């Protein structure tokens, strides 16, 4: 495949206005599946967390998971949506082997939540309101693994394996209205939107929301409208965008790709496109048209979902603080500057930070580690920081620093050990023998040895040339293989000079 032409982003924005739309799928963390009593656990041995319902065996029937309905209502309320007095499941009919019944039970013309909006903040602090069309409940499909062939895709594969453990996992699909006016902020807005949805579902406690595990999946629709024309372009739907960073990159890429095609007089094919994390490109998937006929009809095996007004009000009353309000509160509590706080929010680490602080760490120390070393390691590995370490581990690391057990330098080594799966920070300290030597006797022995090697140092210090201590400190640190607190060594050297 030849590398597609891309137009310079700024040039593309001069010519076209991007029009966006997002479908975000949220996997709910209920105990059991959407329509069966199989454990809602994707993983483990393939095809073990299944019942006749998940396999679509003849005669089996779905039963709606009440917890999933409650979660969906809470999410709808948090998105500012109205909750339907009566909503209905429908069958979306299409043949695909990951779909046990060859139809998906979803909600079509009567979703549980409709018409809402979400405020998202851009990096520079500007706020943007994203209109929400609807949020509806549905079931996840199984997972296909294509074996043989070079791409891992179905094309060229010799055969495919199906794992139905994921079949029937409860999902809420959040669909935005068409988003106009994002303009050159489109890539950033996309990222901020998905990040906000993630914050909301995490604050509700209804999803693990780990993008890298597919708990939260974003399909990004984008089209370009010739600037000032008011004419909507043909859209593409980019799937498989599994990190916040990718959401931003994918939108940016599609704008550049579509602009190049359009400006050369070409046309955009309405299709799904697959995002490739490694190449940073999208590739053509299935052609998709509005004429795709899923032959929706009301699911006759299920009754309409009719939550009582009392239930809705009970769930509304139990809603946690809205993420935007919470951000304002945390910023004040932590005493961060605008820049510091935005840095945290923009790196998508607010929850990690909050949990780290809740676990006992000082806010500034938590910020320093999450946006510094951890972010650097995550970036290098191309993963989200949250997938590397837990807030509890970071808090423990900071505690060890505060207690003087670790220096920053040692702490970085401990962090590597934790990420490598060697255990908790304390366990890594033990295993690697990384603790600071806090025994003054040992330090003094090393200092005396260093002073003996550099006999003029003490005299210089006594003459007021305190910086001369540096040479001794360096030698001591080297002798201690870094496992000493340099400040303490300095104190001891100065004492010797008295």
């Amino acid at each position: 495949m030849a590398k597609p032409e891309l137009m310079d982003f700024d040039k593309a924005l001069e010519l076209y206005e991007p029009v966006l739309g997002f479908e975000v799928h949220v996997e709910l963390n209920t105990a059991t599946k959407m329509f069966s009593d199989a454990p809602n656990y994707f993983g483990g041995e393939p095809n073990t967390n299944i019942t006749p319902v998940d396999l679509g065996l003849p005669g089996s029937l779905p039963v709606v998971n009440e917890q999933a309905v409650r979660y969906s209502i809470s999410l709808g309320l948090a998105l500012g949506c109205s909750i339907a007095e009566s909503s209905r499941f429908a069958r979306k009919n299409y043949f695909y082997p990951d779909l046990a019944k060859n139809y998906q039970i979803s909600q079509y013309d009567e979703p549980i939540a409709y018409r809402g909006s979400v405020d998202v903040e851009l990096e520079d602090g500007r706020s943007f309101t994203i209109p929400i069309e609807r949020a509806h409940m549905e079931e996840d499909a199984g997972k296909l693994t294509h074996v043989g062939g070079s791409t891992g895709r179905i094309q060229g594969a010799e055969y495919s394996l199906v794992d139905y453990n994921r079949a029937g996992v409860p999902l809420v699909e959040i669909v935005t209205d068409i988003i106009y006016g994002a303009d050159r902020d489109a890539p950033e807005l996309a990222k901020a939107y998905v990040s906000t949805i993630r914050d909301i579902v995490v604050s509700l406690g209804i999803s693990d929301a780990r993008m890298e595990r597919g708990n939260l999946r974003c399909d990004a629709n984008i089209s370009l409208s010739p600037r000032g024309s008011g004419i909507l372009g043909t859209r593409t739907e980019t799937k498989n965008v599994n990190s916040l960073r990718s959401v931003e990159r994918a939108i940016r890429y599609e704008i550049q790709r579509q602009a190049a095609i359009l400006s050369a007089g070409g046309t955009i094919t309405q299709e799904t496109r697959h995002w490739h994390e490694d190449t940073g490109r999208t590739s053509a998937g299935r052609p998709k048209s509005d004429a795709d006929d899923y032959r929706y009809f009301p699911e006759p095996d299920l009754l309409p979902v009719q939550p009582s007004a009392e239930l809705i009000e009970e769930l509304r009353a139990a809603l946690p603080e809205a993420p935007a309000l919470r951000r304002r509160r945390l910023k004040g509590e932590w005493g961060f500057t605008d820049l510091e706080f935005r840095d945290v929010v923009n790196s998508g680490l607010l929850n990690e930070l909050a949990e780290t602080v809740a676990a006992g760490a000082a806010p500034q120390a938590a910020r320093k580690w999450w946006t510094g070393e951890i972010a650097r390691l995550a970036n290098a590995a191309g993963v989200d920081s949250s997938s590397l370490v837990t807030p509890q581990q970071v808090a423990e690391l900071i505690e060890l620093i505060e207690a003087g057990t670790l220096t920053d330098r040692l702490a970085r080594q401990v962090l590597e050990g934790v990420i490598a799966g060697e255990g908790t920070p304390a366990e890594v300290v033990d295993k690697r023998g990384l603790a600071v030597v806090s025994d003054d006797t040992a330090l003094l022995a090393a200092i005396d040895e260093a002073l003996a090697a550099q006999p003029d140092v003490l005299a210089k210090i006594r003459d007021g040339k305190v910086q001369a201590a540096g040479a001794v400190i360096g030698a001591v640190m080297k002798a201690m293989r870094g496992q000493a607190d340099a400040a303490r060594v300095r104190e001891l050297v100065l004492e010797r000079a008295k």
Partner: protein
Amino acid sequence: MTTANDLIHLPAADLAERLSSGEVSSVEATQAHLDRIAAVDGDVHAYLHVAGDAALERAAEIDRLRAEGDAGLGPLAGVPVAIKDVLCTLDMPSTAGSRILEGWVPPYDATVVRKLREAHLIPLGKTNMDEFAMGSSTEHSAYGPTRNPWDLDRIPGGSGGGSAAAVAAFEAPFALGSDTGGSIRQPAAVTGSVGVKPTYGGVSRYGAIALASSLDQVGPVSRTVLDSALLHDVIGGHDPRDSTSIPDVWPSMADAARAGRRDGALKGMRIGVVKQLNGEGFQAGVTQRFTEALTLLEGAGAEIVEIDAPNFEYAIAAYYLILPAEASSNLAKFDSVRFGLRVNPPGGGTVEQVMSATREAGFGPEVKRRIILGTYALSAGYYDAYYGSAQKVRTLIQRDFDAAFGRVDVLVTPSAPTTAFRLGEKLDDPLAMYLNDLTTIPANLAGVPGIGLPIGLAPEDGLPVGIQFMAPARADARLYTVGAALEQILEDRWGGSLLSQAPELAVATAGGTN
């Protein structure tokens, strides 16, 4: 001393009494039925699978429990029962009459089957049916037709021809069926037996291989009204695995049937004759027996009222849009990926090609016809005109029922427009076949219960004629009372059951059962 011949002719209620008193054992009763099956089923072909060893084993277990004085035995403990092959059974293949499920043994029991086992009944085997319950003659079974015990050249009705024929040929005291548009009541009519479609949601559908989910309902088939009521009491009630199952506590249907046998049970009962489902288009002998039955009901103190149900006229049209639409989706799962037949195209192929080859080879022509109809009816651009309109008609029919039940206690119609027709007679004319369910379909569309029972033989062909009563949703008990009352009047006149007038079937083995 009860002979084997007596055992197969006894109604289930009577057999249960003799089992309970210890006069006969369940092993004897089960063996008698297995012998009868061996003797006549070569001709009748009511069964697709006979579980002889398992049945005898279970019967011996029940006998042992009884000998030990087990107080937990149900009132029907030890009584054999036949099960329509549309129902999932752990220990027997469940094919729904289709090649695509040949040999498939489900990993679970349908709720109704579980309830049968828990009530200590003895499953004899699985009965034949039109493929996926699509048909009115059982000729659409992939495993060959069932024949009517009254005349082996005639159809036993459908789709549950196997269950009705098994009961009518004394191959089982009673059986489970399923009724989507008449599949219990129409076979009952043409075989001279009793069949009940309960209120939609009255009996669990969990484990019933779905034809049209909003219409399907499992129900009993038997030779007496009381036997259907007894079986209904076993299988009925709420099932958390079926969301459409009604959470109500139901009255005893058996008590309701027994009440019908008391004098004056019909006094003051208002019975509505549906104008649209009488007269024109009905065989003369059917109309004649039906009219006589109305006279008998009136004579017993019932008030006969004519009811206008104008939208019933559109019932078949609506039904043949809703049913295929739901069926086209329900049958999509038969794709060879997880269970059932798999046909690989020559030289292998993609998953789509394997699915296609499997469905091509595994489904019969009637199933394909309805999948195509349903797929079309649900397609974008046609949905409103077909499926949407059909649902509106359904609402109108429900309103007709509501209006009618504002005036009468039950509605009455012939169970079927004709007596049993000859095998092959309507096979090439699907529309003529569809018309057979003219009188039974409205109840499915409205979700109301219906009972069919025999009212005599048509003079022109000597074949059974059935009558159908329908009641408001949840008033199933009323049907058993009315049905049992009319049954009593008729049997008094006939000096026994209608089925005792059925011709003797030839027996296949020397010695036979007599």
